[in-house]
């Protein structure tokens, strides 16, 4: 069971109050892009064992989307942050590095 804190309304709740929205920080390739890029955008996912970045929605609460860094192996949540970012903020990266020195980085 994951315990998440929504950065939009401040509620800390267990995961059944939220909905997972898949991998975060995907770069969109739309019309005009080449097939390989488009295919990778549509289908290629990291699926790591360890540090992972995901989109989540506080679906039963404030309804907002946000992003989260967590460990897929231990379910440790490193932090949640606003959805309007193209890469993890420095403080989240620092937190992950402190907990997982062997992590290769974002």
């Amino acid at each position: 069971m994951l315990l998440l804190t929504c950065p939009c309304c401040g509620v800390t709740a267990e995961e059944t109050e939220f909905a997972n929205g898949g991998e975060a920080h995907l770069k969109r390739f739309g019309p005009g892009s080449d097939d390989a890029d488009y295919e990778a955008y549509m289908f290629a996912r990291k699926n790591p064992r360890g540090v992972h970045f995901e989109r989540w929605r506080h679906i039963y609460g404030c309804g907002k989307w946000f992003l989260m860094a967590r460990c897929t192996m231990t379910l440790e949540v490193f932090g949640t942050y606003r959805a309007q970012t193209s890469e993890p903020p420095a403080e989240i990266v620092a937190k992950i590095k402190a907990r997982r020195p062997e992590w290769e980085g974002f």
Partner: protein
Amino acid sequence: MSEVVSALAGARASGMVELADAGATGMITLRGDHALLGAAVQAVLGLAMPEVRRVVAGEGAQVLWMSPDELLVITGYDVAPGLAADLQSALGDAFATVAVVSDARALIRLSGAQARDVLAKLCPVDFADFPVGALRRTRAAQVAAAVWRTSDSDWSLICFRSVAGYVWEALVTVAQPGGEVALYR
């Protein structure tokens, strides 16, 4: 003129707590920047902007903090359209919306010393730290709901009209005598 009927038609039940359908209730959804909405609420209702996940209660209305860009005004069913019009004119051309949603939801009142025990059976919320005036949007069994505390032993719960019967049955069931859990004292 059609007759107004709340989803639960005035249902009442008693067990570990008293449960009551609040009947036809006025509800107005405000969406937009909270600074804009706060000014309109102050001008029209004379109420302060609620803090995050709080409720501000006045004579004729309660203002609920619903999300970072949403407020819900709870008021009388008959006065809601007029208040909504006043709020709309207070907002003018600002980028905000006002909508009367009185028929969209059901409002259920719970009262009694064991209200938190009953709510905790359905909602994944720690009710130990839940002061009067606080609000929490969460899940009640399988559906979305919002609960707020109006006094030491009085709580309000809203859910969508289409699932009102489900939430009511769930509350009545978990509040049956014999189901005491004595989690909160």
